Structure formats: C-alpha cells, structure tokens
C-alpha cells in the first residue's frame, strides 16, 4: 500500500495492535443487525467520486478498490512542454521543484480552470468513465452555494450525467463504519476527518449530523508539510521548492508521540540511545526516484548512497504532527484535535454523549501517522469521565474509507428515489436540488436547548481543569522558567514573560469568530476566567441558537414546512427529508 505500511517502527506495530484489539472488542459490542444485513445485493450501480482537495478517490461501485488521483495539475522544471494532470505525474522523470496548481483553497473549490481539467481526466476513458451511471460525488461540509451551482452545472450540463447525488464524505464514512463493524445503521458516532486542508469533528446522532456539535480545526496535511519544509530549510537544506519530496518525507518519517516531553528527552540523546533520529535519502531522480529511510546496517546500499543527499530527521519527526494536537505550537489560536472531540461530544444532547464516546471513527490521511490513534485515545481517555467507555476506531485505509461507503449507500432502501435526475435539475433548478442534497443527514432539532447546556459544559470542564485532568498544566515547566529567569540576568536576555510567546494572531476570517477576537490576542495566552468563557460561549451559543428552522428538518414533522416549500413535495421527497436509515 503506502509507505507507512512498509516501515517497521515499533510505534506503528503497537498502534496496529491497538487497532486489532479494538476491532475484536468492537465486534462484540453490537449484535449484527441480521435482517437488514441479509437484504438484497446491490442492484444499483454508480460512479462514486470522493473529491478531496488533495486526492480524488474514484471508481465504479462494482469495483473492489477506488483509484487514487492527485487533485491537481503539476508543472515540472525538467519538462517544459507539458502539464501533468492527476496521475500523469507518474510519467514525470524528474519531480524536483514541482509546481502545483491546486483547485481548492482551504478545502473549497475556487479555481475552476484547474478543477475542470482534473475532473475531465478522472472521468476519461481510461480512468473512471461515467457512461450512463448515476454519479455520487462528495462535497465539503458547508459547501458554498456558488460552488454547488458550478458543480451542478458541470455534472449535468457538461458531463450530462443522468442522475447525481452529492453528500459529505463523512456521510459515506458513517455508513461504511456501521456496515464494517456490524453496528446499528444509525449508531451514534463521532467522525474525525483529518485531511489535507483541515480537520473536521462531526457527531452523528440517529444517523444525522448534529450541527451544534461540529467543529473545524484549520490544520491539515498541507500545513504540516509546509511547516516541515520550513524547519528543514532553516536547519539543513533549502527545500522550500520541494513540496512534493518533503510531503513524502513527512509520510515516510513522521509519527505522533505518546508523550512529547519524554520523546524530546530521547531525541536530545546522542548515539544509540537516540532511537528516534533517522537519515533520509533524498531522491535524485536519477538512480533514486523516491526517497527512503537509510538502513544503517546495509553497507552495500551505503556506498551507493554516498553521492546522495541525506536529510537528518530527529525531533522533526514528531514535532510536526504535534500541531494537530496543539495548534498553539505555531501560534494558532485554536484547540487541538482531541480537545475538539471532547468539545464536540459535550455539545451534543446529554443522553447521547456517552454513546458517542463509544464510537469515534478516524478518517483522512493524517490518521496514517503511526501513533495517531493511540494518542487520540490517550488524550480522550484523560479528558472524558472515567466511567465512560471510549473506543477509537482507525480503518485499515482511512483515505479510501469514504469511497468504500458508496456501496452501503447504494444498498440503502429506495436510494434510487433520492438521486436527482437531469430532468429534475432542468425543471427545478439548482436551488431546489441543492436543498435536497444539503438537508440530507442533518439534524439540529434540539438546537433550542443549546445555550444552557453550553455553559454547563464549561463549568464541568473548569472543574476538570482544577483537578488538572483537563489542563495538564505542567508545574515542572513553570519551575524551569523560574530558574531560567534567574539565569537571564547573567545572560542579559529577557526573562520569558509569563505566557509570552510567538504572538498568536487571528488569521483573517478563519480565526475571527465575530467576537472581536482579533483585538484580544494580547491576552490570548492567559487562561480565560470563568465569566469570560461563559459570556463568550453564550454569545456563540446564541448565534447558533438562532439557527435553522427552515434549513434543516429531520425529526421535525415534515408537514411543519410552509406549504410553498418544495421540500414538502411528496414527489420530490417520497420518504420525507427526514432520516430513513
């Protein structure tokens, strides 16, 4: 499979054992839903396309595996006569200094002059032709309306598909998860989707996304690769132009530490006591096409490598993925992935919280870092109540997992009726059909209870914090700083001010929650006092509370829509817009 599979880190194997153990335990969790299971083979065939910002996973539902296609156009310095679209990059002789044209900006398609040719390539004769099949295509959460308009137009008018359905990748992952572990179809679960552009935490209750529990962390694989590029360029070679190569270095060498402080102690050692440091042989695109970790015991190889450039990787191996868990490491004002899961669970109705903790699913490329699963598990275990059962499931292939969810989707009773046909698109237009896509698997029927609960949750967390379960404030660190302060006088350095750091800022719209956070960055490192937290939460909860009666439906009575609302049409929605799973 991928490079991760070939490496033999002790980290990896322990992680995998965890996974197997979880699997075994899990299979005893719920008795298989046998009556549904035996039900009908898939009679409906479709082209399933999980169109991610970094890779597209495409294939006919009858195929065993999807094809993985880079979602970009690349330009090589060595070949000035051509462009490389998607997998054509395999034909490129020299991949140094590759220049990327990416269709997505922070996960959302904005460059259609790049996206269209890549899709053309994906749907071409030799890759994944559509023919007359229905198309199931993914879109990111909260996909913007004009992007959806474009997608409708391209698929119906340019590709002339007969019928189409569009949904979030995690909707598919949820179906696959229930199927794979033989759980109830609507098992409550939290999906952590950590991809190229960002990381989403999405709770599903009764088979639907629970909107108030969703969190987005603006850290993804792209940021990690760029950070690795930056620190290598500062410390060793200038590799700023080698995104392609350094991304492979990241995939081949990085892992998630169980305990960063302990790991740093080992990385500080010299000689054989440091089992972290690795030499990485960079590709020269002459003899070596893909870089790899040097084997210190293979002396034959060593001679061959003499002319190669070697990268030395030490604490970089685990400090880079750490950003997912502590975005504040690079000055980003955001909680980390495990905190976000906790936050997400506590934002859901109380009676569901414990069930959600039992079913946490990890998908997306970042989950392939060795140690990722066990770290998330450990962090969650320490932050969630002891009495709760916590299960974290990492699929064998967290990248194609969503694509694999296409088959259970097609097996869903009456799914055929949910496909939007070309005729319907032409008659009803984009807005109506988009409503059909966007109200699928969504629930915020309990939004009105939100503000009270939010405050309670914070109080609860504060209590935990005072018990140092949550905050994990390291007193040892503080004492070190005090010691340092004394030394500073002699060294004529500034004493590190309490809480001072690399000045975190708001990054444009991404970080501005509309609560004036831009201006508060100065005190951002102080622990917020309780009233502050509550007022901020309340404000935010209010914002959410104002939410959607008209946008989303689900458990709500279907009839409660106004009569001119087309979602009320029995013809359009034979089963209602609610969940039927």
């Amino acid at each position, binding site marked *: 499979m991928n490079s991760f599979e070939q490496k033999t880190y002790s980290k990896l194997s322990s992680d995998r054992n965890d996974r197997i153990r979880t699997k075994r335990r899990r299979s005893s969790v719920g008795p298989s839903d046998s009556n549904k299971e035996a039900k009908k083979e898939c009679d409906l065939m479709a082209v399933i396309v999980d169109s991610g910002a970094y890779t597209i996973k495409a294939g006919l539902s009858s195929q065993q595996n999807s094809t993985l296609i880079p979602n970009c*156009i690349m*330009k090589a310095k060595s070949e*000035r006569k051509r*462009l490389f679209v998607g997998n054509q990059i395999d034909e490129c002789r020299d991949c140094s*200094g590759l220049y*990327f044209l990416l269709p997505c900006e*922070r996960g*959302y398609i904005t460059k*259609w*002059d790049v996206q*269209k040719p890549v899709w053309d390539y994906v749907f071409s004769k030799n890759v994944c032709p559509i023919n007359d099949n229905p198309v199931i295509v993914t879109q990111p959460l909260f996909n*913007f309306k*004009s992007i959806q308009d*474009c997608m409708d137009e391209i698929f119906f008018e340019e590709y002339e598909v007969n019928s189409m359905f569009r949904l979030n990748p995690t909707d598919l992952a949820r179906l696959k998860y229930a199927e794979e572990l033989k759980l109830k179809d609507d098992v409550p679960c939290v999906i952590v989707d950590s991809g190229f552009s960002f990381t989403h935490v999405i709770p599903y209750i009764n088979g639907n996304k629970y909107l*108030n529990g*969703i969190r987005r962390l603006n850290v993804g694989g*792209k*940021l990690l690769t760029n950070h690795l590029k*930056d620190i290598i360029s*500062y410390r060793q*070679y*200038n*590799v700023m132009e*080698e995104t392609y*190569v350094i991304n492979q270095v990241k995939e081949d060498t990085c892992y998630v530490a169980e305990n960063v402080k302990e790991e*740093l102690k080992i*990385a500080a050692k010299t000689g054989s006591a440091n089992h972290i440091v690795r030499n990485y042989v*960079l*590709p*020269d695109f002459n003899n070596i096409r893909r870089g790899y970790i040097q084997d210190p015991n293979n002396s034959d190889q060593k001679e061959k490598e003499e002319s190669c450039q070697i990268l030395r990787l030490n*604490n970089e191996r685990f*400090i880079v993925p750490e950003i997912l868990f*502590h*975005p*504040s*490491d*690079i*000055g*980003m004002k*955001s*909680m980390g992935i495990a905190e976000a899961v906790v*936050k997400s669970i506590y934002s859901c109705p109380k009676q569901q919280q414990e069930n959600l903790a039992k079913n946490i699913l990890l998908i997306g490329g970042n989950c392939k870092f060795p140690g990722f699963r066990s770290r998330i598990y450990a962090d969650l275990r320490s932050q969630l109540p002891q009495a709760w059962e916590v299960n974290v499931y990492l699929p064998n292939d967290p990248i194609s997992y969503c694509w694999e969810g296409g088959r259970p989707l097609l097996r869903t009773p009456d799914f055929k009726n949910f496909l939007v046909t070309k005729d319907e698109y032409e008659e009803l237009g984009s807005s109506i059909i988009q409503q059909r896509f966007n109200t699928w698997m969504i629930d915020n029927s309990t939004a009105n209870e939100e503000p009270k609960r939010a405050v309670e949750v914070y109080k609860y*967390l504060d209590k935990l914090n005072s018990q140092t379960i*949550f905050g*994990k404030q390291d007193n040892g660190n503080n004492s070190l700083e005090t010691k*340092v302060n004394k030394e500073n006088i002699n*060294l004529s350095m500034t004493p*590190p001010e309490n*809480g*001072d*750091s*690399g*000045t975190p800022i708001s*990054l444009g719209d991404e970080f*501005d929650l509309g609560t004036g*956070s831009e201006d508060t960055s100065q005190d951002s*490192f102080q622990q917020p006092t309780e009233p502050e937290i509550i007022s901020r939460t309340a404000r*935010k909860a209010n914002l959410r509370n104002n*939410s*959607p009666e008209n946008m989303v439906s689900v458990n709500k009575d279907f009839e409660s829509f106004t009569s001119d609302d087309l979602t009320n049409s029995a013809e359009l929605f034979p089963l209602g817009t609610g969940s039927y799973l």
Partner: protein
Amino acid sequence: MTISKSTLRGSNRLKEGDKRRVVDETSRKRRQRKVMELLESDNYHDDPHADLVMSKKIPRFDDSLEQRSTRTKKRNQLVDEDRAEAEANKRVSYMDIQCEESPMPPRHFCAVCGFLGHYSCLSCGTRFCCIRCMDTHADTRCLKWAA
C-alpha cells in the same frame, strides 16, 4: 534533485546597538500572519513555465461558461455570502463551526533546534533554548520579518 547545502537563510549579524531594537506588537502580529500564509501556500517558488506561452495548453471552459461570474469568486467573498445567508436563514454557517481557543497554556519550542525553548528573544519574542541557538537566531531570522 540538486539542493545546495545551504548556509542558513539570510545572515546579517546584528550590530550590538541593534540588539536593543524591539519589534512592536503590530509587527509581531504581521510576522505571524506571514508565517501562517506561508503555511497555507501552494508553492514557494514562481511558476517554472511562466516565461512560456503555455496558457493555450491548459484546457479551458468554452467561452459561455467562462463568462459565468460564479467561477471566479474569491474565497473571502464566498465566506461572506455564506455568513450573510446563514444569518438570514438563521442557520449554522461555515464560520460558526470554527474551533474555539484552547484553555491549555501554549507550549514553547526553540525555533532553531526544535527542543523546548525556555527563553524568548528580547527583540522579537521568538523562542530559543540556549546561547548557541540565540546566536543563530540573531544571525538569521531575528528582525528579518520586521522590515
């Protein structure tokens, strides 16, 4: 691939007097913003084919589609539209699901070597762990961004 063993990027040894110069909060913020932009950038270098007349090789939409304004919307515009529409319809928007700040105190790593950085630079606030790393920092990245 040929990468020259680089000397550290940039290297202006600061004069003693300059050491007193302190980068103000605004410039530090600006520097941080630049770093964040760099971390989200698609490429560090310029298009290697920029000097070629390649544009006609890129498959394009036909003209009628090309004219659609929706295709050229900037991301900020999309976010703003989404926010406005969400407000009008009282629904959760893209911006609402952004993670909150962490209540945990930030950790500090040496910008030069990556180990725990207990000291901070007098001029710019960057973290480092020892005198050696401080010197390296002062020789390279310190104040480089402030200009």
